[in-house]
């Protein structure tokens, strides 16, 4: 693991803010375009180190299942997001490291830790404002042409081990 340059940091932060904005606005196609083919989208329960092959998660999507999730949101019949939740999320405490040995040869890969809070208005039913705080681990990949893709997002909700409300949006 190595520190990153100011230039790299700026580029990665810009990517994270864009990813957050697309999620906030339920721009599913734009959000999915940020995702790489080996994506893993994971919301574990209270133990973020638990083995997902032995432990149930809130969400554990490989790329194929994530595509299905997004396709379902796009049917216009996904009642849990009908209408979509107005959301605003804050991403902060961003720490970036460069991976010494990238998973994919010829690219630069970064491990990013951050905190987030999502404010979500549950307009589909109760019209209550729900707050979703947590930590997040991203793994990002920059291709030689400069394009950045996300291939891993682990969302560690503060309340992951508690009873939690319906969350059909992109966290």
């Amino acid at each position: 693991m190595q520190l990153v340059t100011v230039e790299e940091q700026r580029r990665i932060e810009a990517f994270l803010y864009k990813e957050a904005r697309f999620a906030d606005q339920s721009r599913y196609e734009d959000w999915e375009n940020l995702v790489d083919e080996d994506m893993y989208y994971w919301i574990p329960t209270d133990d973020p180190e638990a083995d997902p092959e032995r432990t149930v998660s809130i969400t554990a999507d490989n790329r194929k299942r994530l595509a299905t999730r997004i396709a379902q949101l796009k049917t216009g019949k996904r009642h849990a997001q009908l209408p979509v939740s107005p959301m605003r999320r804050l991403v902060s405490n961003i720490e970036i490291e460069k991976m010494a040995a990238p998973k994919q040869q010829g690219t630069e890969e970064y491990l990013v830790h951050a905190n987030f809070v999502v404010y979500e208005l549950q307009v589909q039913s109760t019209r209550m404002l729900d707050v979703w705080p947590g930590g997040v681990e991203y793994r990002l990949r920059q291709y030689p042409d400069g394009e950045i893709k996300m291939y891993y997002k682990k969302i560690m909700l503060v309340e992951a081990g508690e009873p939690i409300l319906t969350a059909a949006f992109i966290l």
Partner: protein
Amino acid sequence: MSMTAQRPEARSKADGIDYEELIQKDRISGSLYTSEAVYRDELEKIFYGGWVYIGHESEVAKPGQYVRRTIGEVPVLLVRTREGKITVLKNRCTHRGNMLCVQQKGSLKNFTCAYHGWVFGLDGKLLDVPYPGGFRHDPAEYGLKVLPLIDSYRGFVFASFSPDAGSLDDHLGNGKLLIDRALQMSPTQEIKLTAGWVRHKIRGNWKMLPENDTDGYHVNFVHSSFGRVIRSQYDEAALAPEESLKSLTIDWGNGHTELDFSPSYVGEMAWLGLSDSSRYPEYVRAMEEAYGHEKAHEILAKGPPHAVIFPNLFLGEMNIVMFEPLGVNECVQWHTPLLLGGVPDEVNIRILRQSEGALGPSAFLLADDGVISERQQIALRSGDAWLDLSRGEEREEVRADGVRLGHVTDETTNRGFWHQYRKVMTRNAAATR
């Protein structure tokens, strides 16, 4: 004509709430979901007065292991004692009432209260009181409250706060066959509830969970987005025109209800989202060895039950699900994958992923059910609604043993639930807690 609508709200009479009026043959009052008085009465009669599901023995496999549970609003512990026996204790110190175990689960030698240090054995006996000089009671009378009825059926532990709840055998009735069917999915008849729980909070009354979980009518509507993006066993089972639907709603009696999708399954392992069983030859071989060729393939075709055991357990195919009320307007649906003994790891991994796909806050199915229940709770809030449950009453088949079979879109299961509910709620027996 008077425009004054008759308000069917639950109201307290001298002898309590008039359930005969609120629960009629083919309709029920919406106030049953919204009345605080009804909710309090349910806690007494259903959650404290009758049998409730507590947990599975595999969750506390070793002596000293415990898991926290809540019966109604009472925190309890499911514990494996030093002798290896199962017990259910109140999670409350008998001194000044502090909570004993704070973690959701754990392993201990005994229970020590953090407040003043009283120590209790795993069986609840009071073992030590610090500064005993001032203690004036008989320690034998200050053990943790052990629930008066604790019994299990094939590893499924049930308990009651009321010594008058009758036998578990009578309570389960045909429910035992449903549990048998869940267990027979394993060649060794073993299940392991060791994958942890996801708890989904829904701002709706708890009864919407058992009712919705065996409601076959909603599938085509609430889950149409799922049907459009995923090819699944539900395509033939519930997402087709009325005449071609072969699945059934079943009222097994005692409030135990089932959505039986199996008549529509085309091939084996449809319940695992597969079109045949070629993916897992080792599992098939183990099943054939355990049950013989014919029976094994029958089980692999029919799959696990999709059935509610009244009042708080749902055998949700390859999941075990529990219902927890949180006041009149909120509830929690717990789920854990039903992992099988004696099968290759990849079968259990598939079960895990299927579990996340179906159940929980972000799932393809339950997220939508949750929001539908929340909308219903809001719409019923004024307490003056009547809910129609008449669908298919005239076309349901009543077997000689009283079991009722209905078309998958019919309200046979809802009527089964409410029939039992009324029976329990009109009983006078008070629980002794």
